[in-house]
């Protein structure tokens, strides 16, 4: 079996703890569970009988920036994309690799119904506003930085998946729209990086 990384281990622990759902988990529960399942990875240096919470902290926030995890007030939950990746890790994901996952399908459907998509299709891309960009990424102007970047990655992954798995006219439009938006609102996106 292919070895998995520390963040992947945390992801699978969170998936099990939340029973495959997007529900909040206490930071302490994640630390303890990860230590119990992978003691060699998450033990306190010099005290192998105790968990080291700092080994969990950094990967969790890195996962947040990748759009896999959301957090508030010391609790964390897996995003739909995080759940998709966790399912793949533990081998319960849909085996058909040529089909979009439910999450990818949902993202594409959301994009297709957005104002940005409509204006772009109608040749009125110049009328696309910052608020349309937020709708396109499924965020708002107040979405925290890491979550925003996570959503950018999630949307990009869905568009890439569409291009790889569907390869149709819509794939082409989605790619062009995405490139146009990223270029047009580069400053808006960069201020959050």
């Amino acid at each position, binding site marked *: 079996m292919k070895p998995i990384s520390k963040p992947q281990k945390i992801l699978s622990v969170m998936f099990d703890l939340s029973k495959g759902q*997007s*529900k*909040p988990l206490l*930071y302490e529960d994640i630390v303890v569970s990860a230590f119990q399942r992978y003691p060699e990875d998450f033990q306190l240096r010099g005290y192998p009988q105790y968990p080291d919470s700092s080994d969990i*902290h950094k990967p969790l*926030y890195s996962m947040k920036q990748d759009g896999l995890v*959301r*957090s*508030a*007030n*010391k*609790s*964390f*939950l897996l995003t739909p994309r995080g759940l998709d990746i966790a399912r793949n890790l533990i081998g319960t994901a849909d085996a058909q690799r040529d089909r979009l996952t439910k999450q990818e399908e949902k993202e594409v459907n959301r994009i297709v119904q957005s*104002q940005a998509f409509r204006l772009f299709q109608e040749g009125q891309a110049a*009328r696309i*506003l*910052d*608020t*349309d960009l937020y709708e396109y990424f499924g965020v708002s*102007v*107040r*979405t*925290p*930085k*890491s979550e925003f970047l996570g959503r950018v990655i999630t949307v990009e992954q869905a568009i890439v998946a569409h291009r790889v798995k569907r390869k149709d006219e819509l794939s082409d439009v989605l790619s062009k729209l995405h490139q146009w938006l990223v270029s047009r609102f580069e400053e*808006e996106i960069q*201020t*959050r990086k």
Partner: protein
Amino acid sequence: MSIKVQPFVIDVAVLDLIGKEFRFDHAKGLAEWLKNSSDAYLREQIPDSEQLVVVRFCESGNTLTRIECIDFVGMRKNQIDDAFKRFFDPEAAKKGAKQAHVKVLGGHGNGGKFYMRQMFKSSRAVTYRDGKMNIFGFNAKKQYGFEEEFEDRKVPLAEALVEAGINKLSLPPEIVRRLKTGETGFTAVVGEKPDKVKGTSNLKGLVDKLIFHPQARRLIDRKPIFVVFNEEATLTRLTAPKLEAKEGFETPIVVEVPAELLHGGEKIVFTNKNFPWPGRLALKTSKEPLRAHLASLNTVDFIGEVGVIGSYRVHELGATRFSGQVEFIYGECECPVLEDPDHDCVRNDRQKLLEADRSTALLEWVREQVEALAERMETKNQQERKTQDLKNTSVLNEMLNRWKDRFMSQVWTEIFAGQGPAGGSGGEQGTGGGERGDGQNTGGTLKGNEGQEGGSEKTRKPRFPQVLVSGQDNDPLDPLSTIPFTCDPRHPAIYQRTKDVVAGIYWINTSRPLAEKIIDTYTAESPRWREYLFQRYVEIIAREAIYQLGKTSATLSPDDVVRQLDDVTTRIHDQAAKDLTSFLFAESLQSAK
């Protein structure tokens, strides 16, 4: 086929046929004479400052009896034979030039002659050069020829001046010197009993038309062209009207002509080997609408290598939106390839371009540019109107901002004390959230815990958000802004940019259709508008409350949100009922205060 080539025989009737096409008015015809005079100076390489052209009008009673155009160059007989006598000679204006490749205004050698032939009972050119006088003209039967005894007749200067009727004019010393030394002579083109033309029946109307005529206007602007009436001796300089630009549009809009344009599904190119530069369009604005006597300036002139090769009133470019604004616009377009001899777009009379794909595509493009400028002017107008409409709104907004700070200061303590991170709108915290609310809010001051959101920059922001009104308030985050910040009508009723989030600013979008409708229908002083502003404040406070709640839980259920909204809006309404009765219900702004 092998032929013995014969010279073409063309009936003189063709002159009547073509002459009708010129559809002269006297301003247009005079512009042709002015161009001919100007070309005479160009051929002699006399600088603009040393030139003199005099237009003389004579009337009897209220009837215009004679029009003259006088220059101080003069023609020799051979020039009359080679150029003046010849119709349709594209080189006519260059004949006799000192320089081989002189650039002249005259194009096809017809305009001035047709004007003489078509628009007067009789006309003549009285010309003097090298001590010899020639008088060549058209009789009442529109036939032309030398006046008897005035074909290369030797005449002393003084006598020649008397014969031309210009001996009493006060001429500049330099002109007199050149005449006396014989360096140059003079030509007086005289039209007797001009045809009556609508709009030019009186002298003032005719002079006005002349100085506004696109072909004449440029010459009048650059060269010393004078006017004299009847037997007057003193010359009066003609001046082209100077237009003051519209405020905010003082700098001309200069747009490069694209190297190619799409027209009827085909690409039309505006460059080639001989014409590598596609040209440019310069649009200007006038403070006053270009209508009535200024209407002829509401024009886009197409400039050739020398002078105007076509001129279009803006409405002739095609239908444009923002018609109220287009009448403030004028300009000129340079497009060298229009004069490409292989695809020449220049007409004989230089009024309009020849219809061709290239000229049509260019005219359409120019129309689009005019429309784009008109749209910008209209937008500015709307903004100014809105600023005027909203001038009382800042007072109302200040009242609501103060009320909101007081309200949030009290209520935030009650709702959120001990529930999670404090602050107007905290952002990402470290692991597991940040500080607990201290319950010591101070109402709109910078004290307390400031949240960070929308980025990692630690920027201080007000304890509670600041609400501004689009179309009324300048952007406080842009120190150089001189005009109010405006939102797009498609932006939400409550709008924030990324930088507004950091600074704790909300904009009430007054461009939303409902906001505009209330202002248009009831004015910004009505209770309805105050109610509208108040409702936006309710939204802002509710939004802040939900974000505050969001910091306490990673998963808010719809029930959580609804409970929070119920709680906050109930408190807002109860407090407003106590504090804002007159603001919300009084009919006049004064009583609301």
